[in-house]
Each structure stands twice: as C-alpha cells, then as structure tokens.
C-alpha cells in the first residue's frame, strides 16, 4: 500500500464511524421528520446511549489488548445492586440474621457518597479476577469471561437477595435525569441540559483516549493486542498489561452499574441482560478489530451513539421492538463486513 492510500485509509479509519453515524442520522431524519433532531429527542438518545457507551469505553481497552469481556452485563447488574445496597436502608438485624444480613447492614451503614466508589471498586475486583484467571490459567478470555458472566449474575441476585434493592437518593438518580429546573427547549444553551452522566461520559472518554494514545501503558495495550509474541520478546510484561486492561474495563463497568441504578432508581439484579453484546457491538461498529491491536475510545462512543439512534429512530417510526433488534443485528454485521473490506490486503 502506498503512503498516500495509507493516509486516506487512516483518515477513513478515524472518520468511518462518524460518517456512518451521520449517514444513519440523515436517513432517519428523512424518514422520521424534524422530531428526530429536536433537543428533547437528542437528550433522550444521549441518555439512552450513556450506559452502553460507558461500558464501551472500558471494553475498548480490553479488546485493543486482544481480549474480550462477556461478563460486563452481569458485572453492571452486580455493581448496580451493590450501589443500591450502600444507598438503601439497612435490613432489620433480627436474632437469626445471618452473616449476609450483617454485611448488607454494614454496606447500608456506609456514607452515601461511597456508593459510586463501591460500585467501581467491585467492577475493578471482578476485572482483576478475570485478568488473573486468563493469564494465570492460560485460558481463552472468551471462556473465562463466559464463566464470569454466570458467576457475576448469580452474585448479583445473591447480593440483592433475589429482589430489587430499593433506595432513595435523588443525588444519584439526578445523574441520569435532565437538570432541574427545566429550561426552554428552544434556547441556544439548551445543549447543556443533557443529563450529567453524559458530561461525565465525555470526560471519561477524553481520559481514556489520553490513556490509550499518550501513555506507555497505551502503547503496551496496542502492542500486546497486535502481536503478543513480539511484545513478549521485547520485554513487555504481557500478563500485567492484560490484567490492567481488565481492571480498567471493570472500573468502567462499575461506573456503568452505578448509572444503571441511577436510571432505574432501584438495584435490579436482572438488569443489563445481553448488554455485553450491545457493548461489544458498539466497540466493533466503532472501528475496533476483535483480533485486537486496533480501535479507539472515540470510535466506540460513536458506535454506541449510532446504535442508540437506530433504536430511537425505529421507535419514533412506531416499529415493533423486534424490528429494532433485527436492525441492530444488521448494523453489526454491516460494520464488520465494512471493516473487513477496508482492511483487505493488510498484514
């Protein structure tokens, strides 16, 4: 490939997801009408995309390093439950209360501000466990995280005592709500009215992008995903890099769990079932390769937005939910096919 074509390919690589997003939005705008780009609807889409996008930021780190995490949906549920436990009221400690009730009482006794740190910490711990099992047992990430998917879902139900955990914490739920008091839709500054979680996502994405592009750890992640044997030969501590990737991913899933609790206003252990596939799809639609070594955080966020907009558009058109599901499935296959076509002839 000559340098000029390579430069073009690089621009297309970077801009591809954005171009796809613009095409999807343009097509929807024509079919749906002006409602699609009303501020209220844009805010809806952003709020709907934010959990998947937050997870996709973490998943990008893992996929770039040549891994995959199928357990993230279950981890989000587990972290949502733990977050709700901290914010909820302590259970009655009767004389026959078991150690679990005492643990829940201890959690509920923690100050409210620790709810999010607890969720993030839980995510990091599961990530560390995933990474250690993958590198320590030399197992495929697919297998280990498939097992973890079941284990974490079970743990979520166990920690929730097979119920939803209720809490009353406006500070948390306001993260996913539009700021009050409501402001006029037409105002030029209406764009600041998006839910705080969207702004936080923006900050998280910038941070993660810096990590991936401007730090030595970032280079190591790309190097391990691109050619693990070469990375090892050149003295990169491959297991450490992989474990770190899963821990960073876990932190993002923990935060996504807290957002899930904020949106539902309860800790629901059965939430986010199948969300791991949406998250992985967002990363792939955003230009990453499942083989590792390529992909950007910005692309993954755009990928999440694209899928949220597809969902939103078909909702506005009054299509049945199954149509949306088929559309999303088609979008994933199309994105990967496009990626293959773009990459043909590369080593």
């Amino acid at each position, binding site marked *: 490939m000559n*340098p000029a074509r*390579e430069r073009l390919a690089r621009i297309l690589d970077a801009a591809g997801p954005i171009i796809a997003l613009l095409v999807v939005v343009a097509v929807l705008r024509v079919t749906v009408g002006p409602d699609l780009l009303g501020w209220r609807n844009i805010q809806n889409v952003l709020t709907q995309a934010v959990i998947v996008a937050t997870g996709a930021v973490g998943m990008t780190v893992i996929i770039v390093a040549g891994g995959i995490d199928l357990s993230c949906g279950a981890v989000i549920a587990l972290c949502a439950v733990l977050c709700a436990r901290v914010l909820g009221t302590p259970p009655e400690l009767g004389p026959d209360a078991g150690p679990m009730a005492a643990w829940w009482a201890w959690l509920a006794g923690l100050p409210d501000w620790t709810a999010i740190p607890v969720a993030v910490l839980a995510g990091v711990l599961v990530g560390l466990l995933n990474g250690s099992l993958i590198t320590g047992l030399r197992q495929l990430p697919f297998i280990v995280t498939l097992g973890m998917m079941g284990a974490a879902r079970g743990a979520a139900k166990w920690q929730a005592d097979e119920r939803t955990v209720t809490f009353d914490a406006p500070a948390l739920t306001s993260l996913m709500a539009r700021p009050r008091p409501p402001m006029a839709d037409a105002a030029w500054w209406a764009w600041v009215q998006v839910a705080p979680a969207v702004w936080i996502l923006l900050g998280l994405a910038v941070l993660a992008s810096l990590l991936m592009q*401007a730090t*030595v750890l970032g280079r190591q992640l790309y190097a391990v995903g*691109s050619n693990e044997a070469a990375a090892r030969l*050149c003295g990169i501590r491959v297991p450490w890099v992989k474990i770190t990737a899963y821990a960073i991913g876990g932190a993002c899933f923990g935060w996504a769990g807290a957002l899930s609790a904020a949106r539902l206003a309860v800790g629901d252990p059965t939430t986010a079932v199948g969300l791991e596939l949406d998250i992985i799809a967002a990363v792939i639609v955003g230009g990453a390769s499942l083989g590792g*070594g390529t992909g950007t955080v910005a692309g993954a966020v755009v990928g999440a937005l694209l899928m949220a907009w597809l969902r939103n558009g078909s909702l506005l058109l009054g299509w049945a939910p199954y149509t949306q599901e088929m559309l999303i499935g088609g979008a994933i296959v199309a994105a990967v096919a496009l990626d293959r076509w773009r990459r043909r002839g*590369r*080593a």
Partner: protein
Amino acid sequence: MIPRLDLRGLTKRYGATTALAGVDLTVHPGEVHALVGENGAGKSTLIKILAGVVAPDAGTMAIDGRPWAGADPAAARAAGIAVVHQELAIAPDLSVADNICLGRWPAASGWLRRGERDRIAAEALFRLGHDLPLHRRAGNLGPGERQLIEISRALLSAPRILILDEPTSSLTREDAERLLGTIRRLAREGVAVILISHYLEEVLDVADRWTVLRDGAAVARGATTDTDAATLVRHMVGRSVAEAYPRVPHTLGDPVLVLDRIQAAGRPAVSLTLRAGEILGIFGLVGAGRTETLRALFGLDPGGGSARLDGAAAPRRPAAWWRRACGLVSEDRKGEGLWLDRSIADNLTATRLGAYARGGWLSGGRQRTAAAGWIERLGVRCRDPRQPVGALSGGNQQKVAIGRLLHHGCRILLLDEPTRGVDIGAKAEIYRMIGEHAAAGGSTIVVSSYLPEILGLCDTAAALGRGGLSPVRPVAEWTETTLCAAALETAR
C-alpha cells in the same frame, strides 16, 4: 587482541541427540563472521545459547575476555548481545517508530514522550543508513522494511555483538544488497557481527571469516579471502555417515504432470515435466520459494501459470486435485499436515471417508480395521489406531501423513520436506515407501533442502534458487557440489 566473543568447547545435548559437540568460535570487534551449515547442523542451537535462551551443557564463553555464564536473556542483552531472529517480531498495527522502540518507549512518569520516541527511532534508522516514514503502519510495509525495523530495534541497545539469523531470506535482491552494505558499516563501527546465511555468495561477499558447522561440530574455519563457494559446500556436505537409501527398482514411463510457468506470488516461475514412476527432487535453500510454488500448484495459495495432468487441464483447487488422485504432504506437520489430537485412523482415512460410510453414517469399526492394515503396511509404531497421532514420534507421524496419500490411492505425491524432523531409521522407511510407490508406477515430487536425500532417493533432480529452476537432470549427472552451486547460480 582480546576477542569480543570467545566460545570454547560449547556442547549441548537434547536427550540422545547431540546438537552441539564441543564448538569453538572466536569473533573479534569489527569482524563479520559467517556461520554456515546445513539445516540441523547446530546453528540455531548456537544462537539460542548466545541469546541466553538455553544453557550449554559444557564449555566456556567469554565476552571481551570476561567469562559469561549465559542462560538468561536479560543478561545476554546486558552483555551487549542482540539477536535479529529469522521470524520477525513486528506489531503490525503499531507505527514504525513504535515498533522500533517496542517495549522500550521513552516516558516521563507514564506519559509517552512522542518526540523523544521519534528521535530515537530516526537515529537508529539513520545509523542503518535508511529512511523509513516513522508514522506509517508497520503492517503495511514490505518484508525488507520490516527487517530494517528489527535491526534498528537491535541497535537501540548499542550492541557489541549483533547476531543476524538468515536476515536476507525474505528480501528481494536489492534489499538484501542494501542490508549487507549496512552490516559491513556496522562492523566498521566496531560491532562484532555473526551472520547466519544459506546464501554462500552473500557470505563470501560480506564476511571476513567463516565457520562451517556440521552435525554439531565446527568442521572448518577460515578467511573468506582465500575461500570459494565450492570449498564451503564441500565442508558443509562432506559427511562421513553413510546413510541407507533403499532403492526399489522402477522404470520411468510417459509424462503425467506438466507444469508450465507455475508461479507463487513474488517467486520465480517453475516449469517441469513429471513422468510415471519418476521420483523428481527439487533442491532449494530456505527462502527460494519451494513451498510457495508447491502450494500455488495445489491451489492452496493464489498463483500464476498452468499445469496439465494426464494431458488435460490440471485442477486449480485442492479438492479437485484429490479427486484426480494427487495429494500433498505439507512441510508443516503440526500446523497443517496432521490433526495432532485426532486418532491415527482419522488422520489416515480423512480424504476417503466415504469408503467406510453407508448413507452418511460412518462405521468407526471398519475405519479402524482398515487403518490397522495400513499401520502394518507403513510400519507405523503405535499402540492402537485410536491413539492420537500427536503421541507418535516425528518419523511415525510423517509415515501417517504420507500414508494418507497412499490410502487415498494417489498416483502423484507432492512431498514438501518429507523427512524434516525424522530420525535416520524412519527416513529409510519413508524412502522405501516412496520407492515402492514408484515401482507401482506412481510419481513423486520431493522438495528438500537436504542434499544427500535428493541424490540418494530421486531419479531426477533440479535446483530452485531465487532466479528460477535449473534444468531437470538425472541424479547421476549431479553431485552435491554441482547441485548446491546450481541453487546458488540460479539465484543470480
């Protein structure tokens, strides 16, 4: 003058086989020292010891007069030894600059210093006398440019001993010449260079001194100024071990397979005619494109040219070749030759399972009974046809691989390095199998980098070099020296 590297009586055994038997090697600063020898002569074991990957069983090593124990890759690096391996270690998705600094990126408290990284990479490339765009994706570069990345990386540690293992085998002629010029210049700057190469003209061109390894021993050494290629070849092949090449009498018949300018991508075109009952040997050095040409012929890789089988157009896909009773045995037994974790019976009968099936239902019993018969015929030493083929020795695995073609009823066998990693006893049995196949009127193409095998087994032979295939002649008209020289000549 104190030598940069001084090896005395270096010995390494793997089980019963002796890979290195008391090798002495001395390399001075500013010298390019060529290490030559046939495959299996012990070159790679020597490199592994120098790179600190394996420990020698006996012998001493000294760098600049100081004793060095080895057996530690990090210590080898610290001692100033840098190895450029034959298999390239490149992260294709990263940039040229990132690949040169792979694993040793300059940083300030965790933040990558891009400017510094680019400066280091550019400096290493400048020292090589080459210029690569620092921010291009390494995967988009050609093999020559990737080789430069590897050497630049080796230079980052300011090595005092630079070991290059077949650095030009994947390069075009121009790239190879540029690289050799670079090697000379590095030597002038005081680096001691050890060059491993199959290309003798290259060795004579660039090296100051040479050492020939044969069967794990340093059998000859000298200066390149008073040596010619024929002398090197004589030292390389002059073996005393008389090996058994059981010959089964057979006669050559009519042409069955005609290759007309069959060409793998980036390799020379090959034309030849194979007759019934003929064992045709193609000798070639690593990198000449033997495997690639065979794969292109069999339709495994895209390629050009045409072939005629029994007077009709030859197939273009592997499945069609099998239907026309032609089979290929890969040089890569573990990778694509056999299913190592499947049974001997499954491996033997894989291409003709229909014989043991009724209405799509496979009879494992009949499959195993048939396999047991073939195991007997081929002399495969095993417990049971159900045993995984990976549990067998290399020689017995290879018998199963070739046996698959005989079980299929193949008239034409395409064998790529049929005795690689096979002990001498099993080699003779494989030669007998090929001879019996010829006696029954079958034809065989044997691709090999082992000269005695070509001359002992085949009826006719040709040499494949970078420039193309030499004329096919009866083996009686070849000697080891002329065949080896032909492989080098066609490289012009």
